[in-house]
C-alpha cells in the first residue's frame, strides 16, 4: 500500500510537470478566445518561443534573457495573427494554422543556420537553465510530519520556478477576467463587440491587448519546454501540446479554474500512459498506452458534442468585427 501511495505521488508529481506548458497555453487560449479570436496557433507560438529561449540562453548564458527574447518573439507571432485577422479580417483558423506551419519550418531552418546541428540547439549547461528549487526543510518535514511531509518532499519540492508561475497564472487570469474592468470589457468583446464599440471602447484595441497577453503566456510555455524541463531545443519539441491545451481550454469551458483541472487531468493521463504499458487490469485487460494518449482528444470531442453537459463558446468567436458607419 505504501508503495502504491508512493507511486501515486510520483505520478502526481510528473502530472504537474507535464501539465505546466498546457496550463500556460490554456490560459493564453482563454484570453484570446474570450476576446473573440480563435487561437489554434498556441502550438506555433510555443514552438518559436522554445527555440528562441534556448538559442538566446545558449548565446548569453542567461535563461532570463532567453525568456525575455522568447516572450518578445511569441508576442510578434501574436501580432501577425492580429494583423491578419483583426486588421485584415482574415480567417482566424487559417491564420493560426499558417503560424503553426511557419513555426515548424522556421525554427529548424534558423536552428541549422545558427548551430549546424540538424535543427537542434546545443545542450544548455545547468547555469543557463531554470533549475528546480528545493523547498526549505525538506528532510525535516519528511521525518517529522506524517503524510504531508512526504507530499511536501515528493510533490511540492523540486520544481522550477515556471511550474509555480503556471499555477499562479491561473489565479491571475481568473482575477483579470472576472474582477477587473479590463476583464469585463475583454469578455464583452468576445460576446457582443457592438456593445463595447457603442460604449466608445475600441474593439480592435481590446482584441490586440488580449492576443498580446496570449503571446506572453505561450512564450512562457516555450521557455519552460526548452530551458526548464529540457536542456535545449529539439525539432518539433512541442509535439501537439498546443492542441492538447486547446482541448483542455474547451474542456474547461473557457474558464480558468476548470481549464486548470482539465490540464491536470490530461497531464495525469499522459503521466499514467508512460507507466501502464503492458499492465493488466481486471475485466478491461491490458491497457494500451497508445490509445490512452488519444483519450484527451476523445473526451474533448464527446464534451463538445454535448454528451457531458453543454458548452457555450464565446458568442462572437471567429467573426471579424466590422464597425458600422
Amino acid at each position: 500500500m505504501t508503495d502504491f501511495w508512493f507511486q501515486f505521488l510520483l505520478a502526481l508529481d510528473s502530472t504537474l510537470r507535464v501539465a505546466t506548458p498546457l496550463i500556460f497555453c490554456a490560459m493564453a487560449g482563454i484570453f484570446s478566445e474570450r476576446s473573440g479570436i480563435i487561437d489554434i496557433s498556441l502550438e506555433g507560438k510555443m514552438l518559436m518561443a522554445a527555440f528562441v529561449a534556448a538559442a538566446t540562453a545558449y548565446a548569453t548564458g542567461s535563461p532570463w534573457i532567453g525568456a525575455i527574447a522568447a516572450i518578445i518573439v511569441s508576442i510578434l507571432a501574436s501580432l501577425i495573427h492580429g494583423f491578419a485577422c483583426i486588421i485584415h479580417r482574415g480567417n482566424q483558423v487559417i491564420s493560426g494554422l499558417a503560424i503553426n506551419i511557419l513555426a515548424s519550418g522556421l525554427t529548424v531552418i534558423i536552428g541549422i543556420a545558427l548551430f549546424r546541428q540538424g535543427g537542434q540547439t546545443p545542450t544548455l549547461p545547468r547555469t543557463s537553465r531554470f533549475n528546480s528549487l528545493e523547498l526549505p526543510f525538506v528532510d525535516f518535514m519528511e521525518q517529522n510530519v506524517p503524510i504531508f511531509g512526504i507530499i511536501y518532499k515528493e510533490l511540492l519540492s523540486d520544481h522550477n520556478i515556471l511550474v509555480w508561475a503556471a499555477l499562479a497564472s491561473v489565479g491571475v487570469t481568473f482575477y483579470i477576467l472576472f474582477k477587473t474592468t479590463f476583464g469585463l470589457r475583454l469578455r464583452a468583446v468576445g460576446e457582443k463587440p457592438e456593445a463595447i464599440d457603442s460604449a466608445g471602447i475600441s474593439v480592435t484595441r481590446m482584441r490586440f491587448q488580449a492576443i498580446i497577453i496570449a503571446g506572453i503566456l505561450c512564450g512562457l510555455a516555450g521557455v519552460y519546454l526548452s530551458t526548464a524541463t529540457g536542456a535545449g531545443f529539439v525539432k518539433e519539441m512541442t509535439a501537439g501540446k498546443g492542441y492538447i491545451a486547446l482541448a483542455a481550454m474547451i474542456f474547461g469551458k473557457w474558464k480558468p479554474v476548470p481549464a486548470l483541472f482539465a490540464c491536470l487531468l490530461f497531464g495525469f493521463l499522459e503521466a499514467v500512459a508512460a507507466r501502464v504499458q503492458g499492465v493488466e487490469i481486471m475485466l478491461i485487460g491490458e491497457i494500451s498506452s497508445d490509445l490512452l494518449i488519444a483519450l484527451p482528444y476523445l473526451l474533448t470531442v464527446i464534451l463538445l458534442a454535448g454528451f457531458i453537459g453543454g458548452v457555450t463558446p464565446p458568442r462572437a468567436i471567429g467573426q471579424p468585427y466590422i464597425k458600422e458607419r
Partner: protein
Amino acid sequence: MQASRLPRYVDICVIPILNLLTALFVAGIIIAIIGENPFTALSVMLKGAFVYKGGLGYTLFYTTNFIFTGLAVAVAFHAMLFNIGGEGQAAMGGLGIGLVALSLGGILPVLVVIALAILGSALFGAIWGFIPGYLQAKRGSHIVITTIMFNFIASAIMVWLLAGMLMAPNQMSPETISFQNGVMLWQFHDILNRLGFDIGRSPLNLSFVLALICCFLVWLLIWRTHLGYRIRATGFSPKASTYAGYKPETIIIITMAISGALAGMMAVNEILGVQHRVILNFTSGYGFTGIAVALMGRNHPLGIIFASLLFGALFQGGAELDFEFQTITRDMVVMIQGLIILFSGALAYMFNPMLEKLFLNEERLKEPNND
C-alpha cells in the same frame, strides 16, 4: 469570402499570383538572411522539380497527393465548412486499403481487390469525415476543433494497430506485411518502359489519373448537380437552404463524408501506388498542405490542379535542396507552405484596397462620363 468589386480576371489570376509572389519574396528574404542566395536556391528547386531525370515524375507524384487533399478541403469550403482533418482522414483511408488488401488479397482476383481497396480508402476516409460532420450538424460541435481532435485520434489508432495486431511478424518497424503480389497500381515508368520509352524511375502511378478523374467529378458535383447547388447554397446561407426546403444538416453531413472520402483516397497514391503495405505516418502533413492548395486554387478543381503542381514542384525541388546546400533543407518547403497559407489564406484580401484603387481608377478614366 468578401464581395469584390474588382474585374473577374484580377480576382482569379492577379490576386493569387500577387499573394504567391509576396510569400516567395518573404521566403527569399529569409534565405538571404541565413546567408544563401535565394536565386540559386530557386534554380536548384526548379531543376530538381522539372529538369533532372525522374524529377518531373516525382513532382507529379506529390501533385497527386495534393490534388486529393486539396479537393477534400475545397468541397468542404463550398459548404463553408473548414475540414482540417485531411491528415486523419488520409490515415484512415490507408487503413481501409490495408484491411481490404490483407483480408481479400489471394481470395479474389487482383483487379477486384484493387478496386475494392480504392473503395475502402474512400469509405474509411468518408467515415472519418462523416462523424465530425454529424457532430457539427446535429450536436453543434465546431468542425475545426472536432477535425483537429480526429487527426490525433486517427494517429493514435494507427500507432495502436500498426505496432499491435496488424504489425508484420519479425519486424522492428510499425508496419503491416506487404500486400499480395500484384495488389498495386502500375507506375508510369514501368508502363512507358514496356512501350519502349525510357524515362527515369519515379513513384508516379495510375493514382494520378484517378486524381484527375476526381477533379472532373468534383467540378461536375459542385457546379452541375442539385446536390452541388445545395452544398453551395448551404455555404452561402444555411437559412436560405431551409427556406428552399431541404435541411442544411443533411447537406453538411454529406459534404463532410465526400470531403473525407477524397482525403482518404490520398492513401491510394502512397499505399497502393508505392508502399504496397501500410506504414506509419505516410500522410506526412499532406493533409495540411491540402489547405494551402485549396486556398491558392480558389476551391476550383482547375485551380487546385495548378496549385498542386506548384506544391508538388516545391516538395520535389525541396528534396533537392538537401543535397545542394548545407544550410537549407526540406524544412524550407514547410516554411514556404506556412507563408503561402498566411498570404493567400489569412491575408488574401490584403491587396484588395490597393488593387481596387488601381483598377477602378483606370475604368473611371476610360469612361469619363460616369463621374
